């Protein structure tokens, strides 16, 4: 069978297809429609309860808070309507924060996915010590992001950080650079750290995806005379699409909501010059003492994520349909 057939089979496994097995419908009478309609509830029920109860309820609370006037102590003073939102949109620092957030997300996610593709290939190939390399890769994921961010902040310090020491010993610098004091430099470093902590997870998702590609596919490609690059682009990547989708969306979401990296390394400073929407939201609550406005920012943040993800899904689906 040709490569296309196999690919189509695997990618299209979701679609409605006639089963190969003979009809067994005569074994029992059909259960009532009502009962059958409740069947999903049986399988999905616990999940639904957990999600609705533990996630959706606080979300409702958060939206409610964004519509309230909350005093600096946390006490609710009354209904505020859209006042928190208008105040939020009037903040002069907001446009910069939003722009930076978009740069943050797009930059980190694209680099992460690109590098992860290569990493997954590496981890999939056979060479001595592959096991150990895989284990090494889990460490940044196993360590909490806060810890890794603090370590990097430690290493980048201009007094006692080892990065400056190394760069000076090697001769690239002649005096220590205060990396985290300059908005642009620190932002670049923070993006690098965010990529660093996202790579293990993404690489492993893609690696598991690679694992589901059957050997026959590569055989078929080889028989068709495809070279390594063409095999990769024409066979592997399309088959990785489900994994890539998962990886991309999860990364977009996590990076959007990422708090510890920026907070631990620069606290969004100096001023607001390295804030993203998530750290800004925190500042609104605990520096500005305005819990209501902070909740409004949280709602806006969620709307942004939703928008980005939906756009991404639309683009992917469009490409699937036309490709």
């Amino acid at each position, binding site marked *: 069978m040709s490569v296309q057939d196999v690919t189509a089979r695997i990618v299209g496994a979701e679609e409605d297809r006639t089963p190969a097995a003979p009809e067994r419908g005569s074994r029992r009478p059909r259960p009532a429609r009502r009962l059958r309609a409740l069947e999903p509830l049986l399988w999905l029920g616990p999940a639904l309860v957990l999600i609705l109860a533990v996630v959706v309820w*606080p979300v409702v609370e958060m939206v409610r808070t964004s519509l309230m006037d909350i005093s600096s102590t946390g006490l609710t003073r009354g209904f505020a309507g859209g006042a928190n939102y208008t105040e939020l949109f009037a903040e002069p620092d907001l446009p910069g924060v939003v722009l930076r957030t978009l740069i943050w997300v797009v930059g980190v996610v694209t680099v992460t996915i690109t590098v992860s593709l290569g990493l997954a290939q590496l981890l999939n190939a056979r060479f001595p010590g592959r096991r150990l390399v895989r284990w090494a890769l889990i460490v940044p994921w196993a360590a909490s992001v806060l810890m890794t961010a603090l370590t990097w902040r430690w290493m980048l310090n201009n007094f*006692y950080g080892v990065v400056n020491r190394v760069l000076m010993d090697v001769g690239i610098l002649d005096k220590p650079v205060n990396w985290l004091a300059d908005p642009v430099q620190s932002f670049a470093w923070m993006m690098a750290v965010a990529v660093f902590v996202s790579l293990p997870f993404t690489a492993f998702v893609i690696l598991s995806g690679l694992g589901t590609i059957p050997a026959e596919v590569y055989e078929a490609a080889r028989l068709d005379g495809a070279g390594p690059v063409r095999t990769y682009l024409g066979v592997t990547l399309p088959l990785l699409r489900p994994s890539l989708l998962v990886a991309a969306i999860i990364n977009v979401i996590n990076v959007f909501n990422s708090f510890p990296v920026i907070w631990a390394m620069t606290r969004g400073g100096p001023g607001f010059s390295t804030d993203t929407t998530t750290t800004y939201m925190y500042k609104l609550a605990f520096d500005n003492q305005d819990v209501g406005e902070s909740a409004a920012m949280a709602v806006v943040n969620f709307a942004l994520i939703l928008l980005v993800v939906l756009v991404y899904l639309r683009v992917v689906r469009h490409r699937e349909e036309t490709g």
Partner: protein
Amino acid sequence: MSAVTAETAPTAEPAAEISAKGAATAARRRRPPRLRTVLLTAVGWLVALTFLAPYLQMLLTALKPTQELMKSPPSYLPSRWEWSNFADVWSLKDPPVSDALWFSLYVAGMSTLLALAVGLPAAYYTARNRFRGRGAFLLLVLVTQMFAPTALLVGIYREMVSLDLTDTAEGLILVNAAFNLPFCIWILNAYFASIPKELEEAAYMDGAGRLGALARVTLPLALPGVVTALVYTFIGAWNEYVVALTITSSGDRTTLTKAIPGFVTAYQEQWQYLFATSLIAIVPVVVLFVFVERYLISGLTAGGIK
């Protein structure tokens, strides 16, 4: 050697045309050329080193005596190896790291079990069936992933109060399971969907029940997905910080993550203990991973499926 080569000669030519370049190749070769292996190994080890570098630095710092910690310019190696930093933090600090470790293990382990127990059926059913509300369910799952607990702290706390679960491990377990559940469902759904139904049909034909087919055929093939979901949830619960901070209050219900930042406050700086504790926190996760890593890759490539 030459006999082998001769036997495989007919297929050798097309294979030889394919470039022997390193990591970009995806296919499995019959016998990798030596250069490729060497290159791969070198790159592999370099990659491993890059990822381990900050943590090695953490280790070296954790072993430094207090006076030397923030020396400027910094020394590479400790002048004196203070293994006592680890011992101190393990049992002498308040709360002792040993206690926090067990508590974290309990919370993370149970959260993972709960998330998988609830997510597996949901993902399987969604992957295999069209039902009304399927799209909406998947959308709900996707959308709830977008909420980070940081924004929802007050609501979560209020909820724990009404359920009388404040300052309990069970409360943390519920929250961690719920916030990682969307990811589990999402990825399990993707895996189940990618397994051809024919395989299960074949099992039905052979007399296995629906659950039997699930257990004997589908699950093993979806194992990479299950393991990914397991590791993701465990790590998510293990490293979770803000909710643990908010929900727990007494000293004996401290997770490891809560214990860590307390070493550096406005009035004291004990970076060596902070780093020592962080390193201790990494170990259980790596151990877990070492055990499950092989399952990550098994799958249809096991061959002999047909």
